[in-house]
């Protein structure tokens, strides 16, 4: 292959996602033969699977054009004058987003079968959302990141409103759209301030410009920063920018809620990492209290609201606000430390959170269709076990991914001098038991509803739930060598997270 061309190989996962999404648009009206739904599902599945495999392959075996960064094995390749970057962190996000899409796909298809909406549009929009995630992942420029975030947001608006028969879907999509537009405007405003102060939106140049900033411009940078943090806080549903999430999560079909709570949130966090840790590292740690305040507010408000929800899905919506709080603790700690520890901890948390919530929302979806949570362990042990694993991971029980993430994040919070936030986070995770444990009790020993019908569960859903909850355990148990049999999942994630930290720091 031409070496000139070969240097573009690292962009392959992103290109694949974008082309796959565009192709899906062409396929939707043109596939008439056979089973169009099936064709589209295969298309979406294969595109996501290839993107996942490609990004993991590139991480394991970097190709020409990917320059090593530091001694951790991290690497980076830049394109279009630095507007696009492919490094360890972007490959990780592409892998997470496409894996997330793969894991919600069976549930979404089942929802489409039950509801009255078209499969084709569903798959096209989902692919666009993942492609948008890929753009955010590769953002070397604040504007590229914004573009990616908007692609994700617009696709998800479409997805939420797809099921027109669903009560509440209209309301949800309208609310989401209006408030999302408001948040995007704030984000743009912040970008304008930032551009005005530094004359650049490139993350690499921001880093340099922030160091040599004239004192007079400092205020302008802080103003831009505050506005951008507010915009991102909406995207990740941090209090007090969280209020849309409960209504929108409830209005959407549950697998889609899972997608929003995981892939969309994680995407916004990766952008936050790039903007705050890499781009504005030169501004110093001025923005640490800002994030700490948002983290504290999210944990307190999320917990208080979650405790009072009757519907498990609304409870999960507020619980994910609490988890946003924990992730913000990690982000705030990353602001205060110079090493890679805090970024590594946050990235591990993101992975753990994504897997756990995909399992949790997936199980919730299937369980609520099949006679509710009560006594599920006796009716459908496999499914209930997956849900128990997800719940324990949400709680942060040792041996699950959730424990690992929490342990790491809380630990770096103490290390970064945010002891009060660490204490609050531990308290918050203690309090959170008050709303997770009742679900656990209901699943394990609740009374059986009288007609115990056999569950209706597609094979794809089975596989997705087994994979997500299994990975939660693999990540939680770490490298467990039993009789020579090794499960190195946690080690890989730790390594990848470490390299993600290395590419961000100057």
């Amino acid at each position, binding site marked *: 292959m031409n070496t000139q061309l070969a240097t573009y190989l690292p962009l392959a996962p992103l290109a694949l996602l974008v082309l796959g999404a565009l192709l899906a648009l062409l396929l939707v009206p043109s596939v008439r033969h056979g089973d169009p739904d099936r064709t589209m599902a295969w298309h979406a599945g294969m595109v996501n699977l290839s993107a996942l495999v490609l990004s993991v392959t590139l991480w394991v075996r970097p190709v020409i054009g990917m320059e090593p960064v530091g001694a951790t094995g991290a690497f980076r390749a830049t394109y279009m004058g630095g507007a696009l970057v492919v490094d360890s962190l972007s490959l990780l996000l592409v892998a997470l987003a496409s894996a997330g899409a793969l894991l919600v796909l069976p549930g979404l298809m089942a929802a489409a079968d039950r509801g009255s909406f078209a499969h084709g549009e569903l798959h096209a929009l989902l692919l666009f959302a993942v492609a948008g995630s890929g753009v955010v992942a590769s953002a070397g420029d604040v504007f590229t990141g914004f573009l990616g975030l908007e692609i994700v947001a617009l696709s998800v608006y479409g997805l939420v409103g797809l099921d027109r028969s669903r009560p509440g879907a209209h309301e949800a999509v309208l609310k989401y759209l209006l*408030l999302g537009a408001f948040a995007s405007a704030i984000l743009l405003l912040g970008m304008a301030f930032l551009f005005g102060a530094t004359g650049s939106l490139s993350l690499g140049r921001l880093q340099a410009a922030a160091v040599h900033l004239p004192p007079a411009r400092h205020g302008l940078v802080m103003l831009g920063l505050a506005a951008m943090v507010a915009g991102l806080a909406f995207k990740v549903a941090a209090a007090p920018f969280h209020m849309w999430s409960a209504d929108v999560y409830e209005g959407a079909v549950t697998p889609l809620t899972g997608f929003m709570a995981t892939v969309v949130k994680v995407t916004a966090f990766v952008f936050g990492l790039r903007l705050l840790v890499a781009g504005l590292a030169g501004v110093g740690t001025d923005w640490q*209290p800002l994030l700490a305040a948002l983290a504290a507010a999210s944990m307190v408000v999320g917990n208080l609201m979650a405790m009072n929800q009757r519907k498990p899905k609304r409870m999960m919506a507020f619980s994910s606000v609490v988890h946003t709080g924990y992730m913000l603790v990690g982000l705030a700690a990353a602001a205060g430390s110079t090493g890679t520890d805090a970024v590594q901890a946050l990235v591990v948390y993101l992975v753990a959170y994504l897997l756990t919530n995909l399992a949790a929302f997936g199980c919730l979806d299937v369980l609520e269709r099949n006679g509710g949570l009560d006594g599920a362990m006796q009716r459908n042990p496999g499914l209930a076990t997956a849900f128990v694993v997800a719940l324990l991971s949400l709680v942060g029980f040792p041996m699950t991914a959730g424990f690992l993430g929490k342990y790491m994040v809380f630990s770096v919070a103490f290390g970064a001098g945010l002891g009060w936030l660490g204490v609050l986070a531990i308290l918050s995770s203690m309090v959170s038991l008050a709303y997770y444990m009742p679900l656990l009790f209901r699943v394990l020993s609740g009374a059986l509803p009288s007609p115990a019908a056999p569950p209706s569960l597609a094979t794809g859903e089975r596989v997705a739930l087994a994979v997500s909850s299994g990975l939660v355990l693999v990540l939680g148990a770490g490298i467990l*060598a039993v009789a020579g049999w090794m499960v190195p999942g946690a080690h890989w994630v730790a390594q990848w997270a470490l390299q993600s930290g290395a590419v961000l720091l100057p």
Partner: protein
Amino acid sequence: MSHVALLAWILFAPLAAAALNGLLALRSARVPVPVEGHHLRPMDRLAAGIGVAGPLAAAVAAWSLGFAFLARDRSLRLTELDLGTWFSMGQAHVTWLFRVDPLSLVMVLVVTTVGTLIHLYSVGYMAGDAGFPRFLTWLNLFTFAMLVLVTARDLVVLFLGWEGVGVCSYLLIGYWFSDAAKAAAGLKAFVVNRIGDLGLLLGMFLLFWSMAPGGQASLDIDLLSAHVTKLSVPLATAAAVLLFVGAMGKSAQVPLHIWLPDAMAGPTPVSALIHAATMVTAGVYMVARMHPLYHHAPAALAFIGSLGALTALVAATVACTQTNIKRVIAWSTVSQLGYMFMGLGAGAFSAGIYHLFTHAFFKALFFLSAGAVIHALHGEEELGRMGGLWSKLRVTGPAFVLAAAANAGLPPLSGFVSKDAILVATWNAHHPVWFAVGLLTAGLTAFYSFRLVALVLAGPPRDAHLAEHAHEAGWAMTLPLVLLAVGAVGAGVLEWPHELGGTLWFSAWLEPVFYPSLDHGVHANAVVDIILTVGSVAVVATGAAIGFSLHARDGASTGAPLTGLQGLWATVKRGWHVDEVLERVVVRPVVFSSRAAAPFLDFLLGWGARGFVQGLALAGRGLAVAQSGLARHYAMVMLGGLVALVAWAVLSGGR
């Protein structure tokens, strides 16, 4: 078998049993339950076999390991099982390293030996229950978690066991989940233990980060112990106290003791296993395990001893007034745990652990024989309907008396030896107040133990009909009683005092563990020791005689023995109202704030939004603007947040 293999058997036999029983539990849900009586389905028989075999295999392995250790030189009594890295990120590096040394082995022996007997007993006790295999699954899983706790070499792995036993115990307390009282008891245990866990976690993080500057950022217990003297004393004290807060929750020390009496709502074998012999002693074990840290922080040790003494006394007084058979024993357990902590506080680590060891036998016996009484009376737990059962229960009766006598500390039973060791240690460590409190508690303990014996077994029956139909249980329940009685009587041999011609085998066994710590010179003066022992025996005997004679009379009531005491009696009976006070100060605010704060928060946020939008006109109907559902309100709250962020940025950043 190699020592490592024995350790693997100890850990994984109960886990395998839990897994197999879990599978059976899932299958048996589809098999119909016998309508009447205590019959085992074929599947239940299999579950019973597996459920007892798991801990039994672990017990056999544990005793083999013990004898293998005895044959070895003292310094070589150590076995480690390394299962690789759990996680390694940044500075945090945690390995799956399980270790048995003399201290861990004592705990392992208690958990597996007493555990096996309780498993066997519960086969008889729970027979005929619809969820029989499920019950055994959780009991096996509990045993595994407890074994992880006592063999972990890293505090993070210990925490895994710590939380594991917690979860299993909530599941077992709330076993019959339809019952609201049991669910509430489970919740209470839950809330109180969270407070303890908060302390434990903070202590762990504090230790981790305070060791970091020396390059020892690890929670490996051995590494911590080796380097703990590098910490400044205030820092070590803070960490030690925080860890002890965790122990207070798990081991039910004042004021975090309130959950334990309520946890008696669970099945009796659960009370015996979890709330007497094993889980509640985890705090005592943890403090003993971290002895170099506590040795380095004398103030923390003094705090532990004082709180232990307070707990011992308070709980003993409450135990005197209870009218429910299980609650008497539960309060007694709280009191005895306080005793153990008092021993640790005096620096007598091996005496504290020895009391833990003997207590496991006699308190399990106490609970199980009480369970057999309840079983005989078809579920009756109130003392007011018992009495006159001695002639009916030929096995349970003597077992109950032996348990009470050991609990009271009557010589030559095991309780006497271990209690005496703690009392002598407090005196020799120059803590006369603790000694006095210990002596008073010993008297009270003898009083309520024999009050219980008199009310249950002696005199004429208070309920003739119940007593008429009382019957002894089957061999699965009586055999554990007999075996535990042997332990409760005989365990005293291991530490029989020098002055009475014995050998201190138990302390010699633990010496390699506690050697660097304060355990020396405890037996300072043989004459003083004998005087102290004779004095405490006299107090105990008097207490026992009063307790028995006051309540063995015809028509003895379960209330205050003297009419003048009734007011005080009522106060003490309510646990000195600690429960109510704490309920108001701790538990209720947690529940209440969640209920109250949500509408309040919504109100606050919603009201703020409306204030912007429509002014004061709407304030009148601004009540209960819960998550109002209106996009413009949400937008207004967002705007408020933005304004706050920007204001902050301008104020702090625009220097």
